[in-house]
C-alpha cells in the first residue's frame, strides 16, 4: 500500500507541471490518500491471464486519406487557428523569452 505523503504529492505535481500552494499540498495529500486507499481493492481481483482493456468497443482503426486541407480563415483573412492565441506575431504564436 502506497503512503501518499506530502513529498509524493509534490513530486507528482512537479511531473504534472502544476503549482500547488502549501494548503493545496496538504488537502490533496489527505484526499489522494483516501482515494488511493479506496482503489486499493483492485488488488484483490484475480487478473492472472487477463489482457488489459483500454477501448470499450473493438473496431478496426479507420485511417483518413492523407490529404492536406488549407487552414480555415476568419473574416479578416487570418488563419482561425490563431484567433484564440494568447499573443500573435505576424502569422505565428508569440511566446515570452523563457528559453
Amino acid at each position, binding site marked *: 500500500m502506497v503512503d501518499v505523503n506530502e513529498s509524493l504529492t509534490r513530486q507528482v505535481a512537479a*511531473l504534472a507541471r502544476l*503549482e500547488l500552494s502549501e494548503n493545496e499540498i496538504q488537502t490533496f495529500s489527505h484526499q*489522494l490518500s483516501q*482515494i488511493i486507499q479506496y482503489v486499493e481493492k483492485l488488488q484483490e481481483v484475480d487478473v492472472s491471464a487477463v489482457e488489459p482493456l483500454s477501448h470499450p*468497443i473493438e473496431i478496426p482503426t*479507420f485511417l483518413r486519406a492523407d490529404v492536406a486541407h488549407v487552414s480555415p480563415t476568419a473574416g479578416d483573412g487570418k488563419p482561425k*487557428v490563431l484567433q484564440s492565441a494568447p499573443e500573435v506575431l505576424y502569422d505565428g504564436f508569440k511566446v*515570452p523569452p523563457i528559453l
Partner: protein
Amino acid sequence: MPNHSIPFRTIQEVHSAFESQKLSPVELTQEYLAAAKKSQLGAYLTLCDDLALQQARAAESLIQKFGRVPREEYPLLGIPMGIKDNLVMDGVRTTCASKMLENYVAPYTATCVSRLEKAGAVTLGKLNLDEFAMGGSNENSAFGPVRHPTHPDRVPGGSSGGSAASVKADLCFASLGSDTGGSIRLPASYCGVVGLKPTYGRISRLGLVAFASSLDQVGPFAKTVEDAALLMDVMSGHDPQDSTSIPQGRLNSFATTRTAPSWSQLRVGVPKEYFVGGLAPAVERSIQNSLNWFQKQGAELVPISLPHTQYAVSVYYVVAVSEASSNLARYDGIRFGMRPAGSEQAKDLNDFYRKSRSLFGPEVKRRIILGTFALSSGYSEAYFHRACQVRRKIVGDFTEAFTKVDLIIGPVAPTTAFKLGEKSSDPLTMYLNDIFTIPANLAGLPALSVPCGADEEGLPIGLHLMAAPFQEDRLISAAHAFQNGFELGKV
C-alpha cells in the same frame, strides 16, 4: 410551464404548431432567449442571439416555401436547442466552464452540432457544466454552479447540469450533453428529464473537448424519449474525422417508437448488486414499481449478477483520471488559453507551464495529480494496468448477462438530488455516487435515464435502462413505451 407559455411536449407538436401558424420559429426562439436571459439558474454560459435568430429566420422561410415543415430533410426545423459548453461551435466561445478557456473561440463546429444545424435546429447557446466535465453536481464550474430547476437549494447533478436543468426549466427545447461516468444520466435523473448515453463510438467525438477519451460520449437531453430518439437519428452515423466512430450508418430509432415492443419476448435483467442497500427508500420503491410495470406488460424479469460491480468506481477513477491527465497536458498557455499575470516573468519553460496551468480549478488539479500518479513510473503497473485488466472483467460481466437478457434495469443514482455544498468537501463520497452509471461507460454500453417517480419532496427519480452495444433501438422502444404507459406519481 414555469417561465413562458410553450405548451408543447414533443418536437412533432411544435412542428404541427408551425404548420397551423399558431407559432413561428422566430417567435419560439425569441421566447426561449428571453426566458434564458431572465433565468437565475445559471444554466447558460453564452447565448448566441444573432446566430439563433438567423437560424430561426431560415427555418421560417423554409416553412413558407414548402407550405409545411419539410421533416424528411429537416427533422429538427426551428427547434431551439442548448449545447453543453465542452462542444465547440465555429466562432462561438467554448469555455468548458474553466478559467483556462475563458476567452477561447473555436475555429470549427463539432460534428454532432453541425448535424443538428443541418437538420434545421436553432442553437440558442452554450450550457454550464462542471469544469472540463469533471464532477457530478455542477458545483465545479469556474463560473458558478447551476441550480436545480425546481428546488433551487439542490444541485441539478453533473457534469451536464446546465443541459438537464435548461430542458426542465424550458430554457431550451432539447439539449446536448456528454457522459463519461454518468454525466448525462445523473442530471437527467435529478432534474426529471430524459437523458441518453449512446454506445461508445455511435456519435462522433470530433469537437468534444476530451476528458477521458475511452469513456466520453455525446448524447441528447429531451422531455420525451421520442425526441431523444429523433436527436439520436440526426447525430448518429460514421464520421471519418473521428477514428473511434463506429462504421454503422444512421440510426432509425424514431421509427421504433411508432410500434409497441413485443413484450412477451423481452427479458429484463435485474442485477442483484444494484439492490444491496444504500438506496433511498423512495428510489427503491420507484424502481420496484417500474419493474412491476414491465412485468405486467408481459416482459420477463430475470435476476442476474454483475459480480465485479463493486470494483467499477475504482476502475473508473484510475482510468478516467489517467486519460484526463494525458488529455489535459495540452493546456500549456502557448497556443490557446489564458496567460495569467506573471507568466511573462517565468524563469524557465517548466515555470511558464506551471504558471499557465494554475488556472485549473481544484477538482481538475486533483484528477490530473491522481492520473499522473497512476501513470507514473513505479505505480502504473499496480494502478493503471491493473484497472484496465479489471475493466475487462466488468465488460465480461455484461457480455455474459446479455446472453440471458435484452435489457438491464436499475437505479441511476442511490438518492435524489442532494443539497448544494452537501458533498463538495469530500471527493470520495461524490465519486461513490456514480456507482450505477459508471459500468456502462467502462463497457461502452448504450444507457438512458427516464423519469419514474418522485420522492416525498417532489424530487425526481430516474429509471436506468442499459442495453448491449449497438442496441439503442431496443432501449428507446422500451423506454418510450414506459414513459407513455407508466403512471408517474409520488411513491
